[in-house]
């Protein structure tokens, strides 16, 4: 659960006609963003519903850095007002459709950043962004051998000798 701190009205400008949210990153940066932009995040939407129930505005503390948060906001701003199939809870899961071109450019970052974005997107419950990041990671390791995958993902072979020699590990063709 995120920590929620109360803020007075002067902290969140423009309340009323254009509703704004105050997001606080783990490095204590305060970012003001339009509620409409972040409506793609189910987590934020739920928080906002909570505000409406208590009729109090709060800042939302998020457990990731401002750099990552800004990336997520950039994504949400880009698709502001767009219908994305992946975000529709009633829609069937998307199949093998290719990555959107803009997403490809947006996710052209190093591995660690990509992982931070996917974690943040998962936390904020932005399914389309989780899907795009997951697809980008899947594309990174596509067609690679197990060793190459380990190198790309930065993990070590941690199978015990017994697991390593199980029949399903050996049968490669």
């Amino acid at each position: 659960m995120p920590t929620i701190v109360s803020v007075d009205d002067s902290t969140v400008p423009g309340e009323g006609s254009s509703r704004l949210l105050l997001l606080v990153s783990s490095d204590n940066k305060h970012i003001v963003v339009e509620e409409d932009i972040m409506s793609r995040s189910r987590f934020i939407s739920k928080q906002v519903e909570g505000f409406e129930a208590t009729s109090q505005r709060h800042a939302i503390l998020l457990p990731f850095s401002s750099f990552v948060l800004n990336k997520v906001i950039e994504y949400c701003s880009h698709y502001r007002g767009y219908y994305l199939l992946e975000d529709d809870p009633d829609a069937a899961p998307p199949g093998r459709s290719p990555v959107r071109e803009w997403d490809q450019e947006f996710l052209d970052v190093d591995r660690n950043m990509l992982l931070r974005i996917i974690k943040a997107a998962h936390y904020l419950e932005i399914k389309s962004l989780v899907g795009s990041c997951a697809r980008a990671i899947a594309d990174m390791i596509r067609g690679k051998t197990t060793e190459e995958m380990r190198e790309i993902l930065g993990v070590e072979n941690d199978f015990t000798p017994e697991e390593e020699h199980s029949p399903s590990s050996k049968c490669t063709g």
Partner: protein
Amino acid sequence: MSKDSRLFWINKAQARIPSLLQPAPASLCHTSDATRRALEDEVEAIGIIYSLAKRRRNIANAPIYALPAEVLGHIISFAAAAEPPTRECRRFYKLGWIPLTHVCQRWRQVALSSPNLWANIHLAEMHPFWIFEMLRRSMQTPLDLSVDISNPTDEGHIIRGFLLPPVMARVRTMDVDQGYSRYSRSEEADRLYLLHHICSLIPHATQLRSLRMVQDVQDQEYLPRNIFSSGTPNLRTLTLRDYALDWADICLPNLMNLKVDIEPGPQVEPAGYYPTPIQLSDALRRMPLLERLDLYGLFKDIVDDLDHDISDPIELPRLTMLKLTNISSGWIEFAGSFLIPTRARVAIEFCCSRPTPSLSPIFTKYAGDTRRPRAMRLDPLQNTPYTVDSDSSDYRPSCRLTVAMESDSATLLSAPSLSLTVDNRRSKPVARLMEPSSWGGLCLSELEHLVVGESESDVWTKARWFALFGRARSVASVVTHGKWAALSLIKALTPDMDGDEADVVLFPKLLRLQLAVVPELDDRLPWTPGQFTHDALVRCAQARLRRGVPLKHVCIPRQYEQEKWVNRLRRSVRKVGFHHAVSWDTFVSVI
């Protein structure tokens, strides 16, 4: 490495293996079997500790290891969809995505605990060991099976071995594919045996929701008569290409999507396989939930049968898409007896075997009532033999017309015939199509989406765009599949170099322009000026911005993505108010 940890582990290990730090003996021949076994046990135990330590290090160091299981599941399922296991040649199989489960323990755990990942099985593309493993690991999850029966002699026994009633009872979707190949007599017997084996199991597939059977052999295959007469209560989607159905026998009460090629084969087909209007109407009446109906090959003339065959209209209360391709006039009249829901969106596609003097018979039908075409597709057929002229008896269709409309009428269509004839080489029929008068009373004022197919150079000109679509002021999206249409449209949308904007108000609401071929990037057009599309698009965008009607999207095919030209265009168009360029893959056909 810290000294402390090294000392600690050496001390620990020495307690278990006393001679650990002694110089290695020349040979182990003096070591007893018991000692050797004890050493192996120690090494194994150390191996386990070593793996556990590495696992701990992975948790600490590798950020990917710390991702939630749900996210890891997403990554693995995308990888699985992108790289299914395949068979390279007779005895060599590629495992596709499966090596991903050998990366580390956590990934393996996530993969093994997601039965859905293992439920997509390609029989004949996978080693029997893996088919067995995937069936086991998928537990009781519904299966998505793909079966290729192109190689019946080598793979038939594997397919038959796994396709048993208990497995079929779990099948949710099934694709049966057969590529083109020539068979010897014994192979042909194997193929038929295999096909009939599969068909005989379909009544066992009680969970089956989608069945697709496609073949590329020359003749149509006749499916067994009782294949859909019982069972398959959950079947929602049925697609058959070059497989003929017995229409008299079909009973699929929950079917929602039906796509069948009912073109008769070269031989005389068995009774019922090429339906009479009454058989087809009875079959459709037994499918009350039908939403999409796509029938190909209703070209036998049936005019004489119509009067006494169809007495009541055919109610299709949920139909949203009707596509009848290669259809004769008698069958068009038959389609007129369909009752479709009020306000349903319907797309109709006709491909006619004979030319008609004009399009008026069909378009006048729409002109007077409240129906208005909202999307239109003009698509000359490819690979169609061109004919001498329209009076010739062997005239072939070379253009397909699709109109999508809002319908509020009970009767879908009763026009006696419909065709759109464009001969790509001869001017007469082209001129006829492109004469606005031949469009009858068609009102394009509400047309929103326009798709234009490939055609020869003289079909589309700037003047024709204005003549045909000058009044289509609601068009928001245009897709051009051919280079000529693209060139002429860009010209039509672009002011002249001297800045004359008098005649460029075409499509004032245009938001999206999609080019399937960018003219100067097409190798087949060596003479096209290198900068034409770029400069014209930028000029067009500038002019539209000045008028307050900016283009929001320009879509280009994915294969051009890496071209320098595209990056230049992207930079230029950003300056002149494009929102962003949307890639080809985001295009969704409006029809």
